């Protein structure tokens, strides 16, 4: 039985396609893309009418925390991948800060097999840079790369030792993998709970200064430059970091950066009231930073969008702000938040938005997919750009309820998610 997606606006930045077309999927592969394919459909074919809808390559998230193994109360590969599918994602890159840490071949293999068995979208492991995320010795990147790690990161914290970071950049490049760098000088950010500024002063919370991020973005760019390695900067949140990346690119450094939905939609003013759903690392910054991120996306300095999905249990989050863990559960609201912040305000074209969530991350991380080329796996997302929905916990798939967007009425939602030809979500209902 084949699947035909009929009459949708097929938008594929990789192939520069933007037409009303049909897509035919057979045995999990896109076998044809053209006008009026549905006219020749067989009786047994499943037809999805996408009239008036946007049909795009399945979204790819290069930054999320799926918590398994070790953090199953926060999220599992089953729930995390369902949350991804509900958000229109067909592939997720899982950060290695699990327990045990994904810092060797066994960890990578476990993640792959467990995701295969319980997940509903593709999961690509990101291996640790250092053993146990301790920042002391390199993890076995060669082994991990061979068995499927797509990138390396000590995300959650920086590799504090510059020598180790420099060696990691060099070694990962030899393994043909990229380092995705969490940039935060711990000494400048000790015990902080929110961005340092007017609101931290008013609320009496310890501040995380923007310069703690900037200093390490500068360091990691210089280290990468010195060994000729590419580097990807995770969750860019400050104006300073955007400027540093822009300057480095101008002199030819191979650096990219990603932006998260919450840093585009919110500022540190949202912390008033001490809602711990707003506690995230890096923290919500100022309006000036928010504008700089949008400028960086608009001028092409920043080319990748990612969620930094970081689910936590309600009991962990429902406590004193300073003691709550950092993180926002972001997979299920990413697309409409990006839409609101980048399309409705004219920051990006639709092509640019889709590229930042598909072909750009695929290319930068060496992942399959990210396009709708005939012959490739049928990872497809259908968006209803006119659909309005209030963010609520009804139907919420992630175990992490820690969203600062609860109650927001947003327009433009993923309605159907297809992974390798299997329809995982249809008309916003999970089918698996």
């Amino acid at each position, binding site marked *: 039985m084949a699947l035909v997606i009929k009459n949708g606006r097929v938008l594929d930045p990789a192939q520069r396609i933007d037409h009303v077309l049909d897509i035919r999927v057979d045995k999990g592969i896109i076998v044809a893309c053209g006008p009026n394919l549905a006219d020749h459909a067989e009786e047994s074919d499943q037809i999805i009418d996408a009239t008036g809808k946007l049909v795009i390559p399945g979204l790819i998230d290069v930054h999320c925390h799926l918590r398994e193994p070790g953090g199953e109360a926060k999220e599992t590969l089953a729930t995390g991948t369902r949350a991804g599918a509900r958000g229109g994602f067909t592939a997720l890159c899982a950060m290695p800060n699990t327990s045990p840490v994904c810092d060797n071949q066994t960890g990578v293999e476990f993640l792959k097999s467990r995701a295969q068995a319980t997940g509903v979208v593709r999961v690509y492991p990101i291996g640790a840079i250092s053993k146990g995320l301790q920042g002391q010795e390199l993890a076995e990147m060669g082994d991990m790369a061979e068995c499927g790690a797509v990138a390396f990161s000590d995300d959650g914290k920086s590799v504090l030792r510059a020598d180790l970071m420099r060696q990691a950049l060099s070694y990962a490049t030899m393994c043909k993998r990229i380092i995705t760098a969490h940039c935060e000088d711990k000494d400048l950010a000790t015990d902080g709970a929110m961005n340092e*500024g*007017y609101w931290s002063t008013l609320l*009496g*919370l310890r501040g995380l200064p923007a310069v703690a991020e900037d200093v390490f973005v500068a360091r990691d760019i210089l280290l990468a430059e010195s060994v000729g390695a590419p580097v990807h900067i995770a969750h860019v949140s400050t104006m300073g970091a955007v400027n540093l990346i822009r300057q480095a690119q101008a002199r030819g450094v191979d650096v990219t950066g990603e932006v998260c939905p919450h840093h585009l939609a919110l500022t540190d003013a949202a912390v008033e009231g001490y809602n711990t759903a707003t506690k995230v690392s890096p923290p919500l910054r100022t309006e000036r930073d928010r504008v700089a991120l949008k400028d960086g996306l608009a001028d092409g300095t920043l080319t990748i969008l990612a969620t930094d999905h970081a689910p936590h249990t309600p009991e962990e989050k429902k406590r004193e702000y300073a003691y709550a863990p950092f993180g926002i559960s972001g997979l299920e609201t990413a697309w409409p938040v990006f839409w609101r912040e980048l399309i409705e305000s004219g920051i990006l074209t639709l092509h640019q938005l889709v590229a930042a969530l598909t072909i750009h991350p695929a290319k930068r991380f060496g992942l399959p997919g990210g396009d709708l080329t005939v012959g490739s796996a049928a990872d497809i997302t259908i968006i209803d750009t006119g659909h309005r929905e209030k963010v609520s916990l009804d139907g919420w798939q992630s175990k992490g309820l820690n969203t600062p967007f609860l109650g927001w009425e947003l327009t433009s939602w993923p309605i159907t998610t297809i992974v390798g030809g299997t329809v995982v979500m249809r008309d916003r209902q999970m089918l698996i």
Partner: protein
Amino acid sequence: MVWRRKDLLGLRGLSHQEIGKLLDTAVPMKEIIQRDIKKVPTLRGKSMVCLFYEASTRTRTSFELAGKYMSADTVNIAASSSSVVKGESLIDTGRTIDAMGADIIVMRHSASGAAQLLAGEVKARVINAGDGAHEHPTQGLLDMFTIREKKGKLAGLTVTILGDILHSRVARSNIWGLTTMGARVRVCGPSTLLPPEIAALGVEATTDIEAALRGADVVNVLRLQLERQQKGLFPTIREYGRLFGLNRDRLRLCKQDVLVLHPGPMNRGVEIADDVADGDQASIEEQVTNGVAVRMAALYLMMGGNNDGVGN
């Protein structure tokens, strides 16, 4: 004016009238404290629980006596001797106290926002007795009460807050309360102990102690937490005292009838010189008395009282 708030979490957002009402209500309360028989039946049958997650002598005792003088049943819980050491969350502890029928919970906690968190989870009224570096509203009120008593007004006065502004909830509550009441507030301390964008709270900020003291009507000297030195916020206690301590010479820069306040406990010889602390211009012990009075006022108003009922 009738008090309509469930809780007293901070002075930010309180109106001129609300603060005025609290201060006015404290006047007859102070008279009660000075009586031979310090007991009125106003809060008979009401219960008050003091939940203190941080060490405190004066604030806790002050609240407890305020409750007792008005015949409330008062209970103290120190975090070190409670189920908190067994890992119970703040919310669960609060709900437990709530279930026992407490009318008011007075809480001190090291985390900013803790009082608001608790208030959202319990039926009892919550008074914030200090949350992290956020607010300490009854301290702000007692400082304002003392100033008003000595100066006859608040509006138009210049009040200098001196010391570790960064970590101080007393400074923040003073800033909100005093600016709402029309006073001019200056804050002064080493640059490392002035929080970013503090001026945006409506104050003048400076590291120049002479400029900060010149012409001041009131100087509120904050306690220096001695452990801040280890975090590298200033080089030595000695140098702090030399650069930012309030001494006789510096006091002469203020108005002649300057009023000196300190929330206590004092580090004599560090942030305040011995002779200043014990000098004629200081009202540091009076502040303590006034603390009981404003807490009686807060308890009274929050339990639904108005001025007419005081003093029976």
